[in-house]
């Protein structure tokens, strides 16, 4: 089976771990337990009749305490760029991280997940913030690890992009 490495990228507490947990185990917890180091989960899905195993690398959120190590993202076929729609700063951080990651990995598929969409009352992003990204050709999905909204869709979109791209520099674990 084809295996593809995907990294979860975004600043701390945006819900990277929660999105993986929702996607892989259909679980969610309100409690915040920060990720230190790397945790890898697997999930199989079918894209265009082909089975793909996604290796989901949940990285510690980058902030003033931690920097993303280039060696951790090496070999990725794509990444899910995650921000928290209730924290404008995390949105700007995600855009900045995209710059860093694409500097390391080049132009590889990614999807932006604007998470915590269940918290609409605290929403800090405007439509135009999102439209600007879409206008640049970004795929943006509103997600909620809490309700499950958009979660399958975000990973599926990413997997589809990855499968479409046949000239990506990638390492396969099969």
């Amino acid at each position, binding site marked *: 089976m084809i295996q593809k*490495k995907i990294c979860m990228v975004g600043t*701390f*507490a945006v819900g990277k771990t929660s999105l993986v947990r929702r996607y892989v185990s259909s679980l969610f917890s309100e409690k*915040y*337990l*920060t*990720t*230190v*180091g*790397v*945790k*890898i989960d697997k999930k199989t899905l079918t894209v265009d009749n082909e089975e793909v195993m996604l*290796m989901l*690398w949940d990285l510690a*959120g980058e*902030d003033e*305490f*931690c920097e993303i*190590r280039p*060696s*951790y993202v*090496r*070999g990725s076929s794509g990444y899910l760029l995650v921000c928290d729609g*209730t*924290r*404008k*700063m995390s949105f700007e951080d995600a855009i900045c991280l995209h710059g860093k990651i694409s500097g390391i990995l080049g132009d590889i598929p990614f999807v932006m997940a604007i998470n915590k969409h269940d918290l609409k009352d605290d929403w*800090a992003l405007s439509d135009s913030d999102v439209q600007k990204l879409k206008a640049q050709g970004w795929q943006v999905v509103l997600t909620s690890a809490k309700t499950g909204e958009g979660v399958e869709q975000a990973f599926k979109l990413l997997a589809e992009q990855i499968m479409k791209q046949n000239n990506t520099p990638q390492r396969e*674990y099969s």
Partner: protein
Amino acid sequence: MPDTLFSLYSTLQTVVLERQDDTRFILLTESTPWFCDLLPKACVARETLVLQGISPFLDNFFFDANEVWSDQNAEPLCSGPWVEVNSEGMEIALQADAINQAGKCLLLIQKLGQSYEHQVNILQAARQNLLTREHLEAEIHKRTEQIRLREEEIAMRLLAASGVRDEETGAHVRRIGMYSAAIADSLGWDQLNIDEIRVAAPMHDIGKIGIPDNILLKPAKLTSEEYSIMQGHAEIGANMLDGSDIPLLIMARDIAYCHHERWDGRGYPRGLAGSDIPESARIVAIADVYDALVHQRIYKPAFPEAHAIELMTNQSGSYFDPDIFSVFIELLPEIRRIREEIRENAYSGTPDDHYPYVL
């Protein structure tokens, strides 16, 4: 390996392996349950093991580790922590090191204990703190924004109550506020002052409340006597807004008082020139004239923008502050966007806005 060292590694929850070739390692220390969990089957000391493929994280680490092992002088390399799930579903934190020792290529894998938990706790606390700080800042921002919106609404309602003209409270004055804020932003003003000019600029003509209707609403050209009464609106407005400690009202006063002053000193009411005219008023003068020119008034059709800009460009340095005018020209795409966003219906305009005559 001597017995003491053997048990020391055990105590340190560390296994040591010696690299044989690209795929095989010999286990130099005793095996441990957590290490066996990584492998397809249990193992014992001195056993030769294939480690490739047991953990994607380790596979990735071997890329860099191989470089270390191929150079006996290379510095040891640490993988950083990673988390595996053991056979009981428990998460265990591990860390690997690639070391060259006495000509041997060694791989150490350690189960992280208290120090890791300590590190997690510190990071957890630090990030919780940052989150709290972010939430507080967002809350302050939200409240400030609410206050700002209330101020704006009060200002607009007062303008409406003053009965100057319907359209003064409508699209035209809102656009003046938005254009002015955009120009102020480009000039590098701080956010507080940008928000303030957005609300203060719409009050520029508030003094027209004191101008008799027969002059204010006269659809024909004013006599020179009527024109000088009309010019009094700047001073009336300034008096209405005078004497306040509220920065917003201080700025609104400056704008009301000085938005008809000219850069060359030939404006009214005081004939101020250059930087003696408050910057806020110099900005509003440009915003106000532009908006009047590109929209229809009872005394004139809407001018095509190019024509309006041509007229205004001729007045840069005489009517308008030339530096602010350049900024305004660079901002035209944004200004157009604001125009599109805040459209007006019909707008009659008062004789004071007969800018083609004024210019």
